[in-house]
């Protein structure tokens, strides 16, 4: 099978214009007990925002803990390895407002809106001040802050912008969701359509906001990881692994190589499952029933294979701090050791590559109607992808070949080839998903061989003990999930979670989707939406 060309970004020359870089600016702040976190004062923060305008540092997330605002960056060089090199700047804001980052990093926008809804702290000079998850239906305003005010409960009231004059004159408003009868999570889209083309798009989320991060506070790491697995079913392994990585980093736990390899197997299975889901939904939206049926059946076969070895169709509750937990295995799995059972599973799934997968892919490419709808629909430009630092299938479909997997130990032995395309439309995104599946199947075959060689190892190699550390400790983790990089920062105190920050690509993808939809034909709406694969649950947290 031929692979698309692999693109590497050029390495930017180090800028030397006399002004300190963002990196040095943050590092010049007050040191904290966490080696990668620095406290800035108001002036330093303001300076930071100004410097971000022309500094290539990668923005990872922005959160609030009630007292401080934290901005996380990754100081890796573009074109270098993709390992997360965290650098966190913290600010104690003077009053309930701070200088927002969205004017210089658009990807900060959903974080600013989330902070405003949960903590009542406002971002100044923000590009978007609409509420993200709180639309007035909650039992309190700014529920997580100390100043939370109980609010009169009632139906959510959405504030939409006044419709575009062209839409009011010659078009119509088409509302979609949150209950469409489909299986996607609840989200509302309000489309302004003129002459059959979408002119304005407004997304209202928050229907699936459960307050996950607030619930994790005070939990034991194991319980918090269980909950992290329920942030979004389409990225359950990614979130479990990321939180475990963060906890392990905080507590200094070394995960045995066998367990690392088994986690990688689970992550690749999840990638295949999620890609098959979104491909099938895209085919369904384009009414390509034949290929849809094949994709759903392939996904079902995958789920049944998992059930036969792991006792679970979906991979919730499979990763625990220190290693992996595979309980509820049927008798046949118990006879084999865990690594051997996993090796067999990976091997059986990898066989899909020879049998069915090329056929489904060929069928997809031969479905003329489907290709017609997908090609050119929902275009995302390279510049936009750069500004939003898009990763995952959407970013890789417009030429950004970022992949956190390159940096994990588990993938070191298997030579990863990240597929990249440059067209940036729905077709490129769907083909990236196919390429991703092919790559995952190849990786699974390699992991199967590796685990086969480790099958005689004892249970200590499957899960390392996690020490009870009472002191305050902070850690971070980042994993390449099916729709892009997932990042968690955790603070532990007395063996429990004191604070957790979660960044999922869904919120930024949802923002990109809004932009990509304008100008599309309205019949393409569902197809474009499915090609982005935004999980409402992950966007709302």
């Amino acid at each position, binding site marked *: 099978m031929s692979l698309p060309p692999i693109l590497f970004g050029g390495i930017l020359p180090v800028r030397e214009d006399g002004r300190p870089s963002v990196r040095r600016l943050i590092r010049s702040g007050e040191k904290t007990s966490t080696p990668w976190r620095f406290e800035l004062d108001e002036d330093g923060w303001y300076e930071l925002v100004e410097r971000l305008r022309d500094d290539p540092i990668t923005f990872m997330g922005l959160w609030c803990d009630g007292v401080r605002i934290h901005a996380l960056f990754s100081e890796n060089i573009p074109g270098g390895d993709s390992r997360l090199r965290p650098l966190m700047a913290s600010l104690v804001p003077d009053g309930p407002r701070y200088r927002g980052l969205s004017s210089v990093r658009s990807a900060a926008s959903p974080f600013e809106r989330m902070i405003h809804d949960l903590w009542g702290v406002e971002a100044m000079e923000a590009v978007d001040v609409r509420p993200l998850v709180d639309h007035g239906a909650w039992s309190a305003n700014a529920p997580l802050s100390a100043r939370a005010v109980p609010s009169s409960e009632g*139906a959510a009231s959405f504030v939409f912008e006044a419709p575009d004059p062209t839409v009011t004159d010659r078009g119509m408003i088409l509302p979609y969701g949150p209950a469409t009868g489909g299986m996607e999570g609840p989200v509302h889209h309000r489309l302004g359509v003129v002459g059959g083309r979408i002119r304005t798009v407004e997304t209202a989320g928050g229907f699936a906001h459960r307050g996950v991060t607030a619930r994790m506070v005070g939990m034991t790491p194991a319980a918090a990881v269980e909950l992290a697995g329920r942030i979004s079913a389409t990225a359950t392994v990614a979130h479990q692994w990321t939180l475990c990585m963060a906890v392990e980093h905080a507590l200094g736990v070394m995960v045995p190589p066998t367990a690392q390899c088994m986690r990688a197997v689970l992550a690749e299975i999840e990638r295949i499952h999620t890609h098959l889901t979104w491909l099938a939904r895209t085919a369904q939206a384009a009414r390509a029933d034949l290929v849809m049926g094949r994709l759903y059946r392939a996904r079902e076969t995958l789920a049944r294979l998992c*059930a036969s070895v792991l006792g679970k169709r979906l991979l919730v509750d499979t990763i625990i701090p220190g290693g992996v937990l595979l309980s509820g295995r049927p008798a046949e799995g118990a006879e084999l050791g865990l690594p051997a059972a996993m090796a067999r599973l990976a091997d059986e799934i990898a066989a899909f590559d020879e049998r069915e997968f090329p056929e489904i892919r060929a069928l997809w490419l031969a479905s003329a109607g489907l290709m017609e709808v997908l090609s050119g629909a929902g275009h995302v430009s390279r510049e936009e992808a750069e500004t939003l630092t898009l990763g995952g299938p959407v970013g890789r479909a417009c030429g950004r070949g970022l992949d956190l997997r390159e940096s994990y130990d588990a993938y070191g032995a298997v030579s990863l080839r990240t597929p990249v395309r440059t067209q940036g439309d729905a077709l490129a995104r769907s083909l990236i998903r196919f390429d991703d599946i092919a790559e995952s199947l190849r990786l699974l075959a390699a992991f199967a061989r590796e685990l086969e060689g480790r099958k005689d190892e004892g249970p200590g190699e499957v899960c390392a003990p996690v020490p009870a550390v009472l002191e305050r400790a902070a850690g971070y983790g980042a994993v390449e999930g099916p729709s892009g990089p997932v990042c968690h920062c955790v603070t532990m105190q007395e063996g429990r979670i004191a604070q957790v920050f979660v960044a999922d690509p869904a919120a930024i993808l949802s923002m990109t989707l809004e932009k990509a939809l304008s100008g599309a034909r309205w019949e393409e709406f569902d197809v474009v939406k499915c090609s982005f694969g935004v999980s409402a649950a992950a966007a709302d947290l």
Partner: protein
Amino acid sequence: MSTVLIRALFTSLVAPAGPALPPVISRSPLVLFHVDSGGCEACGLEVEALIHGNYGLAEAGVSFADTPRTADMLLVTGAYSRMMMPVVQAAWEAMPQPKGLLAVGACALDGGPFGKNYAMLGGLESHASVDCAIPGCPPTPHAVLEGIVSLLSPASVVRPVAATEE
């Protein structure tokens, strides 16, 4: 309004003091309308698998609608968020009589891992009378089908055998 018993409210509006309503299920095929009331979407994935994964849904006399107006039962997944409450109520209101409520997954029952807080109401159980509850986090498609089939013929639970079951 959050603690209103949806079931009681709407039943009382439609049939204030009439004779007992006929059994919930009287039509075949049984038409379901799915609403995700705010969860992790895993139950939705499994219901999707039930529809498309050769479980013999049509043979069991079950189908899914894309509007509540033609549905016999409301299939709710997710932990019932405050924002989804009016949506679930509106769907319920739009359904013709007789109708039933099907809660799929631990969340839809009692909130599961997502109990009551500022944004969630913690499941349907304490807000409405659920006609069929399918526990599990997430339940398998088979368990969901079995629950639905047990509604169709409560006396003898038929264990459906899917065409491609291994």
